[in-house]
C-alpha cells in the first residue's frame, strides 16, 4: 500500500505561540514538493514533526496507513536533512559518510563519491569547520544517497553559490529519474525551483494556504493590467491578492477563476510566475 504521508489536524504550540494551526496535508509518493513560506511560517517545524524529531500537541501523521512516530519501519522511509546535525563537529566528512552508510544498509556509496567530486568536497575536512555552503552540500549528499522514500530537504541551498545550486538541481533530477521517490524541499529561491517541483505547499501564519499541483496553481494566477479604473472594474469580485501601479497603469494580481465579463480592449491579462504569486499571497498579515 503506497498512499503516502497523511497529516491530519496537526497542532503545535510552544508556550503561547501557535506554530502549526490545524494542518492537514497529503504527501504523495514519487513527487517533488516545494514547501514555501515566509521566515517563521512553520516550515521547519512541520518537517521535524513529520520526521519524528519533534512532537506535536495533537493531530495524526501516518505513512501508508500506519504511524511514523516510534515506528522503525516507517521511520526508515523518512529522512530529514538536519538529522546529521547530531554528529560531532570533530568528525571528518569521510567518517561521517561511513557512519551514515553503516546505518542505512542501502546507502548509495557510488553516488556519494560522485557528488562529493562534483561539489569538490574535501572529505578530510572536519564537519564542524565547514562553511555554510559546504555544510549544506554535505546534507544534500547524504539526503540524495539514503535509501528513504520520503526525503525532506530543509533549505538545502542555504549558502550555496550559483554553480553549486546548479549541481544540486541536476543531481536531484538525475537521482529522481533513476529512482523516483518523494522530495519535499523548503526554499526561498522559488524562481530556480519552480519548474522542478510538481506540487506546491504554501504555509502562511501557521496554516496551509495552498496545496496543489504547480500546473493548477500557475493556470489560475493572473495579472490584469491596464488603466486603473478599468482594471478595478474588471477585477471587481475576483480574488485579488495584490496590485502594483506605475503612473495610471495598474496591475491587479488574481489567484483563482476569472469571470465572464467582456475584457475591455485596454486591459491585458497575462500569467504570473510562482515567485510573484507567492510574494503577493504572503505579503499581508
Amino acid at each position, binding site marked *: 500500500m503506497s498512499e503516502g504521508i497523511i497529516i491530519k489536524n496537526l497542532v503545535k504550540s510552544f508556550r503561547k505561540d501557535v506554530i502549526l494551526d490545524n494542518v492537514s496535508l497529503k504527501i504523495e509518493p514519487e513527487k517533488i514538493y516545494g514547501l514555501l513560506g515566509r521566515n517563521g511560517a512553520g516550515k521547519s517545524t512541520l518537517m521535524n514533526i513529520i520526521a519524528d524529531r519533534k512532537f506535536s500537541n495533537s493531530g495524526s501523521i501516518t505513512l501508508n496507513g500506519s504511524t511514523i512516530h516510534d515506528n522503525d519501519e516507517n521511520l526508515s522511509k523518512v529522512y530529514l536533512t538536519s538529522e546529521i546535525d547530531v554528529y560531532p563537529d570533530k568528525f571528518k566528512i569521510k567518517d561521517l559518510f561511513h557512519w551514515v552508510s553503516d546505518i542505512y544498509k542501502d546507502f548509495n556509496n557510488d553516488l556519494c563519491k560522485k557528488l562529493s567530486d562534483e561539489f569538490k568536497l574535501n572529505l578530510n575536512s572536519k564537519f564542524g569547520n565547514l562553511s555554510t555552503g559546504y555544510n549544506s552540500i554535505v546534507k544534500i549528499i547524504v539526503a540524495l544517497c539514503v535509501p528513504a522514500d520520503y526525503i525532506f530537504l530543509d533549505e538545502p541551498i542555504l549558502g550555496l553559490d550559483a554553480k553549486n545550486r546548479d549541481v544540486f538541481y541536476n543531481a536531484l533530477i538525475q537521482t529522481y529519474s533513476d529512482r523516483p521517490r518523494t522530495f519535499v524541499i523548503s526554499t526561498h529561491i522559488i524562481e530556480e525551483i519552480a519548474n522542478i517541483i510538481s506540487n506546491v505547499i504554501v504555509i502562511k501564519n501557521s496554516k496551509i494556504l495552498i496545496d496543489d499541483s504547480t*500546473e493548477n496553481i500557475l493556470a489560475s494566477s493572473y495579472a490584469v493590467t491596464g488603466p486603473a479604473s478599468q482594471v478595478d472594474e474588471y477585477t471587481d469580485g475576483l480574488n485579488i491578492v495584490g496590485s502594483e501601479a506605475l503612473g495610471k497603469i495598474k496591475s491587479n494580481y488574481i489567484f483563482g477563476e476569472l469571470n465572464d465579463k467582456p475584457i475591455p480592449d485596454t486591459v491585458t491579462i497575462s500569467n504570473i510566475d510562482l515567485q510573484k504569486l507567492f510574494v503577493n499571497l504572503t505579503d499581508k498579515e
Partner: protein
Amino acid sequence: MKFNFNSAKPIFLQVAEQIEDAIFTGTFKEGSQIPSTTEISKNFQINPATVLKGMNILVDNKLLEKRRGRGTFVSVGAQSKIIKNRQENFYNDYIVNLVHEAKNLNIDEIQIINLIKRGYKA
C-alpha cells in the same frame, strides 16, 4: 531548444512545441534518437514528469516513437506531417492576425497583397 517560462502556456506544452519545432527544422532528423527525458529535464531544470507529459503528446500524435529499452525516436514521416499540419493552420495562425492588425492600421486589401508580393521578392 528554448523555453519561455513566463509564457502563459504550461511547460509541458512548451516541451512538446519545442521538440516539434526541432523535428520541423530538421535538428531532430526522422529515424534518429532524441535526448532522453532525464537529459532534457537536467538541461532545462524541468521536472521529468513534465518533460514526459510533453513528449507523450508527440508520441500520441505519432511524431515520436518509443522503442523499449532504447529510447525515443523521431517517426519516419514526422516532418512532412508537421509541415502539412502547419499549412492547414496557416490561415488561423497567421492570416487572421495579419488582417486584424492591417485593418487597425487602415491598410487595405490591395496594399496588403502588394506587401506580400514585396515579401516574396525580398
